[in-house]
Each structure stands twice: as C-alpha cells, then as structure tokens.
C-alpha cells in the first residue's frame, strides 16, 4: 500500500488527509470563518499559518490510533494552485517542511484536477465531462490527448463568488449559496436576468449585479429563484455542448456549488434527455478537501511525478490544462 499525505489550503478551507489506494485513511480540517463579509485573503493565510501545525499534529494523532507512523508515509502532496497567493505559499511551506523532515518526495498538485480525480475515484465515472463549480472556479473540463482540457469557463468571477456577492448585497450571511437556495424554494416566479453564454464560456459578474438591482422591484424569493435558474441554466447548457462536442456519455459534478440540489436536478434532466449518466460524489468530496489533494498526490507519486523543493513554487493562476496527465493510460 502507498500512503500519501496531502494538504489543501487554496482559500478558506485548511485540510490535510492521508489516503492509500483503497480509502481515505484520515482527514483533519480547520476552516477559516470570517467574522463578517467574505474571505479576506490575508486573514485566510494567517488562519492557515496559525492552524497548520494543529491540523498536522491532529492528523498524526489519528494516524497513531490506526498504528500508522509518519515514517510510513511515502510522499507529501499540496495544492500548488490555483488559489489565493498568500494561502498557497503558507500551505506550500508546511508541505516542504514535512517533505524535508520526513525525507520523502514532494508532489505539487493542481487543485482543479484534484476535484476531477476525486470524483472519478469516488463515483463510477470513468471518462466524464466535468462541471467544476466552486466559489472562485467555474469550468467545464474533459480529458483529451494527455490533458484535462478546459472546454468552457467563466470569463470573470466564479459562480460561487457571484452568488455570495449577491447574497451580501441582499443582507444574507456568508456563504450565500445555501441561503439563496432556501429562499428560491419559496418562488416559482422568474424575473428576467441577463443570460451570458459566449460560445463555450460564461460570465457571472453582470448577472450578480443585475440580480441586486432586481431587488428594487421584486421580492428576495423571486430574485433568488431567478438567479439560480438563470446561472445554472448557463452552466448546464455549456456542459451539454461539451458532451455533444466530445461524444462522451458521462457528466461529473464537483466543487462546493455542486451541493445545490437545483443544479443537480437540472444536470440530471439534461443527462436524462441525452441518455448520459450523471455522477455526484458524496458532499465531503465536493468542496475543497485534503483527501482530493492526497489522492491526486498518490496518483502522481506512483507515476513518478514528484518535484524538488527548489521547483515547488506556487502558481495562483495554475490552469488544469497546463498539467500533463501522467497517471492515465489511454
């Protein structure tokens, strides 16, 4: 059995996990919760710095209960990007320290690809079109010729940020997505909002602003309902196009916004109409988690895809299509 310890900390969630080929052995998470408003990048990084040793020592304690020593670990993996620069650097520092002190290889992981791979691990999906919808990232991905290609993506902000931005302006607390979902359930009254799909890409910042303006004339329930219907239809349309274009027959959902039941329902209907299969991993593997970083770390480690500390710079704009998929054979 191979054991890999992975650390995630691209944004608000600091999480470390140990996985082997079969399962997540243990996972410890400490989440940065802003007192008011959204994520403050510096505060998030300070949170990670403050709790990194707490997370790792708790993880080691959990390992000890299962009779696993830190010396049994084969490699350390960490989120190399994309994410908030200060958060990435903090987590990378912790990962380098572990790699040097345990004298085991370091693996730099692309956060978006990790979302894809944990979904493939934890669902029956084999070669899916992936809708990855989170706070900062919104992309439609699929594997083709050695890389996870981006078939469509947001031209400005992520879907989750758009929802949070609207929620704040409507006086709802952070994170806004679950609250919007709750209010939306009390309406069936669609009010017109901008639907922005350009080719295979989507844009959400104008939609968020238009939804805020719509509150002047419409109830919160109606605007929440319309915002969800509008934004999710944009995501589903591009996902369907990617299915048609690639000829693939599976859709996998990932990212924190994937928790939304209406988004799942819409994807399910679309897949049903096209005769495609729709997969959603359990909730703990949808939002940012240490297990996905450890799992992709394990795949890459076994493919010999490790890096030296000198080459372990973080990249806040690390795109999934920059990664050579060394662990898959066609």
């Amino acid at each position, binding site marked *: 059995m191979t054991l890999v310890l992975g650390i995630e900390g691209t944004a608000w969630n600091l999480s470390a996990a140990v996985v082997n080929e079969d399962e997540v052995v243990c996972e410890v998470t400490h989440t940065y919760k802003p007192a008011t408003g959204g994520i403050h990048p510096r505060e998030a990084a300070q949170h990670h710095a403050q709790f990194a040793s707490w997370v790792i020592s708790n993880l080691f304690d959990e390992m000890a209960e299962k009779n696993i020593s830190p010396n049994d670990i084969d490699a350390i993996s960490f989120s190399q990007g994309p994410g908030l620069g200060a958060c990435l650097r903090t987590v990378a520092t912790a990962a380098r320290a572990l790699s040097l002190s345990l004298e085991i290889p370091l693996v730099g992981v692309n956060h978006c690809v990790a979302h894809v791979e944990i979904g493939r691990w934890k669902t029956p999906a084999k070669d899916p079109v992936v809708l990855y919808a989170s706070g900062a990232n919104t992309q439609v991905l699929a594997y*083709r010729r050695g890389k996870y290609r981006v078939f469509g993506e947001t031209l400005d902000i992520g879907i989750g940020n758009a929802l949070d931005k609207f929620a704040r302006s409507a006086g709802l607390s952070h994170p806004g997505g679950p609250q919007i979902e709750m209010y939306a359930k009390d309406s069936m009254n*669609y009010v017109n909002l901008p*639907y922005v799909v350009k080719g295979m890409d989507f844009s959400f910042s104008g939609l968020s602003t238009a939804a805020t303006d719509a509150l002047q004339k419409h109830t919160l329930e109606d605007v929440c309902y319309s915002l969800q219907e509008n934004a999710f*239809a944009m995501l589903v349309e591009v996902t369907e196009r990617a299915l048609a274009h690639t000829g693939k027959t599976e859709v996998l959902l990932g990212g924190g916004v994937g928790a939304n039941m209406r988004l799942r329902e819409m*994807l399910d*209907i*679309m897949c049903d109409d096209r005769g495609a299969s729709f997969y959603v991993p359990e909730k703990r593997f949808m939002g940012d988690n240490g297990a996905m970083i450890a799992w992709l770390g394990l795949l890459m480690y076994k493919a010999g895809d490790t890096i030296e500390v000198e080459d372990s710079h973080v990249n806040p704009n690390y795109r999934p299509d920059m990664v050579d998929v060394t662990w898959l054979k066609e």
Partner: protein
Amino acid sequence: MAEGVNEMIRDGAEAKVIRRNNRLVKSRVPKRYRVRELDERIRRERTRAEARLISEARRAGVATPVIYDIYNSTIEMDYIEGKPLKYVISEDLCEILGELVGRLHAAGIIHGDLTTSNIIWDGNKMWLIDFGLAFSAGDLESRGVDIHVLFQTLESSHPNHEVLIDAFCRGYRLTLSSADEVLDRVIEIEKRGRYA
C-alpha cells in the same frame, strides 16, 4: 409554412434542421432543464440574432442563405445546393474562403463555427451557412478563435493542411487590413491549447 416532404438534415443538441423542398427550416429545441420563460426567451433571442447576422453578412458581400420567414424560434431560409468544402477542398478554394472570412470579420461578424461542413461550394460561388454560434465582435481574440477552429478542422481532416492554411491566409490578407495581427493571435491561441 411551405408544403412538401420533410427531410431531417440535423437533429442537434441546440437545433433541429429540416429540408422542405428548396427551403431549410431551422428550429431551436426547448430544454426541459430550463424554466419555460427563460427557455423561450433564449431561443427567440438567438433565432433573431442569427437571422440578423445572416443578413448583415450578405450585405457585407458574404454569400449566405436568403431568409424567408422567422417565427418564434424557427428560421426558414434558402437551401443552398452545393458541396460542403470538405469534399471539394483545394488551394484555390481555400484562398477564396480566406477572402470571404476576411470580409465577414471586417464587417464585425464572427461566425463561431467555421468548419468545412459549414462552407458550401456550388461550382462558382462559396457560401457560408449555419450562423447558430455567430456574434458581433471585432477584437483580435474573437477573430483568432474563429480562424483557429477552421485550422483545426483542416489539420484533422486534410493531409496537405499546411498548403491549405497558407492559401487561406493569402485570401484573408486581401480583405482584412489587420489580418497579420489576427494570424499572429491564432498562433498564440494554438500554443495555449485550450480549444483543442
């Protein structure tokens, strides 16, 4: 609606295309996952935009089907008799295509789906069809992506694609003054590898 025998040309995710005698009837299909008001609005807006761009392109000197009728999310237009470029491709035809796309881009129109199936040669004239993904834009990136899609089609289906691409570029430079900048951008887009 004209009487006659219907022949299904394409049963796509976005639209159904039927041939009825000498007319082509394109209808955007409803999506069950979208709330009805939104679904109808999108299909109506896109149908109108497509019809408008087809007519604008023709006014700019690019041969496109004549439109007879637009209702709800359906367009009735001329059926263009001829062969898709992919079956008759040659260096000369690629140069003509370059001129055509240059004129289209100079008029501020991006086709959005320039494959050799959407270009028809009728023996003496070249036509552009299927403006379903077309939009108005004049920036380098939009023009570059438009051409990148075409080059990819050429590279994947024609062994002598380098000669064909050179011929296209010759024609494109004749009708678009900023052609060189666009073609530089195409190379950059290829390197990004994102639309592969």
